[in-house]
């Protein structure tokens, strides 16, 4: 039985001071992530999804509330928590190989072990043959592969990914999503991925956390009970995606939508209306999965 609270986020609030005004980026957010789980977080810009990720990774510590990883309070970055940024953030003066090796700089491995890990990791992300290339010689997709390799090379417990495919073209993006899913399945690493791409969120996530902006809150957590690897074109996936889209839309709608959200009744009716577009059998299955249970905090 995996630890259900491998990453434990409890009542976390993060405020920023911007030009003398206090902005609440996250408003008492709670989220538990199980060991080996793939959780994706979607939301409109300004919903605090990246803030949440940075807090979880320990890059930001100015919050109120409690964040724990494997039972220990997160007080700063740790080599047990890998991170992949939207931009590959490679060191332009180092080759791919040496960039990946940066992830092992302060690990306890011996020199030979490090070399082996770097070679394996580069192989795993499909960059074999480009070990000696400098970042400016790589395409965007290849550079991001190197970024992922650097995040994974130390065999972290949890990998945080902050819109890792946001800057890539559609084809490269789809391929890298598939590869990330393979890596996740093979390495059994807990992954938390922030994205603004709903397709990506439902394709990859065991659960999709939908956040609403101003202040950043979790609107709903949508489980995706489909086995990995998934068929991108499957009807079930499309159905779940439509639901997530709808929740997302309700978070960005103007004030007139807000009272509607407060009452569960109308919300249910609206979602059912959207669902009617997909086959009846699917509809029934989706209901069984209690997709619409409100997990708003």
């Amino acid at each position, binding site marked *: 039985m995996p630890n259900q609270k491998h990453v434990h986020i409890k009542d976390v609030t993060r405020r920023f001071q911007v030009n003398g005004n206090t902005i609440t980026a996250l408003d008492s957010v709670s989220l538990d992530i199980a060991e080996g789980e793939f959780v994706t977080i979607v939301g409109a810009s300004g919903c605090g999804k990246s803030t949440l990720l940075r807090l979880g*990774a320990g*890059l930001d510590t100015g919050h109120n509330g409690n964040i724990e990883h494997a039972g220990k309070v997160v007080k700063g*970055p*740790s*080599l047990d928590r890998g*991170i992949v*940024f939207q*931009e590959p*953030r490679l*060191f*332009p*003066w*180092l080759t791919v190989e040496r960039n990946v090796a*940066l*992830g092992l*700089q*302060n690990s306890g491995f011996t020199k030979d072990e490090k070399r082996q890990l770097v070679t394996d990791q580069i192989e795993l992300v499909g960059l074999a043959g480009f070990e000696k290339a*400098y*970042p*400016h010689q790589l395409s965007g997709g290849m550079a991001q592969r190197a970024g992922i390799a650097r995040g994974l090379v130390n065999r972290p417990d949890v990998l945080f990914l902050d819109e890792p495919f946001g800057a890539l073209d559609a084809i490269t993006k789809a391929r890298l999503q598939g590869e990330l899913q393979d890596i996740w399945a093979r390495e059994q690493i807990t992954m938390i991925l922030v994205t603004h791409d709903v397709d990506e969120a439902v394709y990859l996530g065991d659960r999709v956390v939908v956040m609403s902006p101003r202040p950043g809150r979790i609107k709903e957590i949508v489980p995706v009970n489909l086995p990995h690897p998934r068929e991108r074109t499957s009807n079930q996936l499309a159905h779940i995606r439509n639901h997530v889209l709808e929740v997302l839309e309700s978070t960005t709608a103007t004030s007139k939508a807000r009272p509607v959200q407060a009452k569960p009744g109308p919300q249910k009716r609206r979602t059912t209306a959207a669902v009617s577009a997909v086959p009846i059998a699917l509809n029934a299955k989706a209901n069984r999965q209690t997709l619409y249970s409100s997990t708003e905090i």
Partner: protein
Amino acid sequence: MSVQSALKTRRAVKIRRGLTIPILLLIIWEVSSRTGLVDPRFLPSLENVFLTAKRELIDNNLIGELSISLSRNIAGFFIGSIVGIVFATVLALSRTADALITPSFNGLKQISLLAWIPLISIWFGFGEQAKIVFVAIAAFIPVVLNTYEGMRSAPRDLIEVGHALRFTPLQRITRIFLPSALPSIATGVHLGLIYSWLATVGAEYFLAIGRGVGSLIIAGREHFDMALVMVGVFILGLVGFALNRIAGAAEAYLLRWRRVVE
């Protein structure tokens, strides 16, 4: 025509154009001194300059003078550059040091380099030590300014990566700040190399005890041997040119990781 040969032709044309004016000047020089347009005592003929160069090279110790100047230059340049890089690193990375020292440094750098000479001569005398100190100061200033700027503009994104990978303070310096400042440091060191060569000559002029190419020129002036002065000036120019090229090549090698924009 292939790209390679096209580039070659373009380079050849560039060199040919660059050489036009120097060759023209040499011709005017030669013609005017031969035809007696100018007094050969003030502007000796090319032949005379060439013969003087040969005499200095073979009978006198021109190579020795040159190597004395060069070793002075190199000693001062290395001391100034290394101290400069360390000094600028401390200023750029320590808030306290920055607040305490940078304003004074910015004030002091406004003082003309030549204004230091009286002070240096009193503190260090007129010998080798004083000359090297002067050359070192000349290299120090551009190295500090450029290194400081480079360190200050280290990308925040990469600093954050270093934070996430739990870099130690030393790793932050050697892995992020120094390499990202390297293009600026190279510019500073390049300038430092040029300034230090100018300062080497200046030191030999103003702290005129000892040997070196600068002293050779001073001697030429005192004996009214304009050909010797010309030889000295030519050598200074050639060495400056060579140093510039060497610095450029070293820079290109060290910064080969940068994107080549064609």
